[in-house]
């Protein structure tokens, strides 16, 4: 088991993960990022605006980046 930190960037805001979470292997880390981004989007998307990019940067205990992922929302009015 090793500890990984999931920092989340949502447009202007940046939430640092100070405590981290333990995972068996890197595949579990990737799965966790995949599950996390939709959760973050679901929570924060409703705020406002038509463009949102949610990004997660996973670092290991040495502070080295190991994985990053991005989820985008782009809304466009076609008739208003």
């Amino acid at each position, binding site marked *: 088991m090793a500890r990984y930190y*999931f920092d*989340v960037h949502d447009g202007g805001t940046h*939430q640092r*993960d*100070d*405590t*981290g*979470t333990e995972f068996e292997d890197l595949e579990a880390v990737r799965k*966790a*990022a995949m*599950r*996390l981004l939709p*959760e*973050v989007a*679901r*929570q924060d998307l409703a705020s406002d605006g038509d463009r949102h990019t949610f990004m997660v940067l996973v670092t290991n205990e040495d502070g080295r980046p190991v994985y990053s992922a991005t989820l985008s929302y782009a809304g466009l009015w076609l008739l208003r």
Partner: protein
Amino acid sequence: MRAIEREDAMSSNPLVLKLQHGAHIIEEGDRPDDVHLVLDGFACRYKMMPNGSRQIMALLVPGDFCDLHVAILGEMDHGIATLSPCTMVEIPRATILDMTDHHPRIARALWWASLVDEGVLREWIVNLGQRDAEHRMAHLFCELLVRLRAVGRADEAGYELPMTQAELGDVLAISNVHVNRTLQTLREAGLIAFKGQRLTIPDVERLKAYAEFTPNYLHLAEREDD
């Protein structure tokens, strides 16, 4: 629980179990002969999914029956496991049936317990379906404060919460990492604080307002016209 029930339960020599964290008391499909009552620690009702993920549908704290269904229904439709070291008492199914046959007040108390379980379940459905992770978690912390205070396991501003983040995720239907983020958000907002396993709520009314928590579904008071 009322005195008479305690006497009856004592007279039939119930077995006291000391269980470790993570013990499986009953699994889905079992047909147990005994009903379990939590004396100390935390347990849960859960279902395992084919992909290995788990949903916890109820938390069981001291004073809660784990499986009153066993007395009447046949096979278990879910499992029961401990979330901390736990002390439980095993009451034979026959004792429960005998008590309910001969003591209407006990029958009514057990019925009440089942109805409250349903009330909690309804609130949890609302919680999972309608609240975001932060409010969902805040709501759970408020509920546990009220339930644990009712059995003397919490003081005015907090309690021991022995669950892991993964277990909290299984309750709240969010990922382990999101549990971690959500805890950090609530902590940064000054709504909760953790010291080891102890959860402290600096301003209970503020957390209740944030979570839109109303304890009515716990039915802690009896009907006044009875």
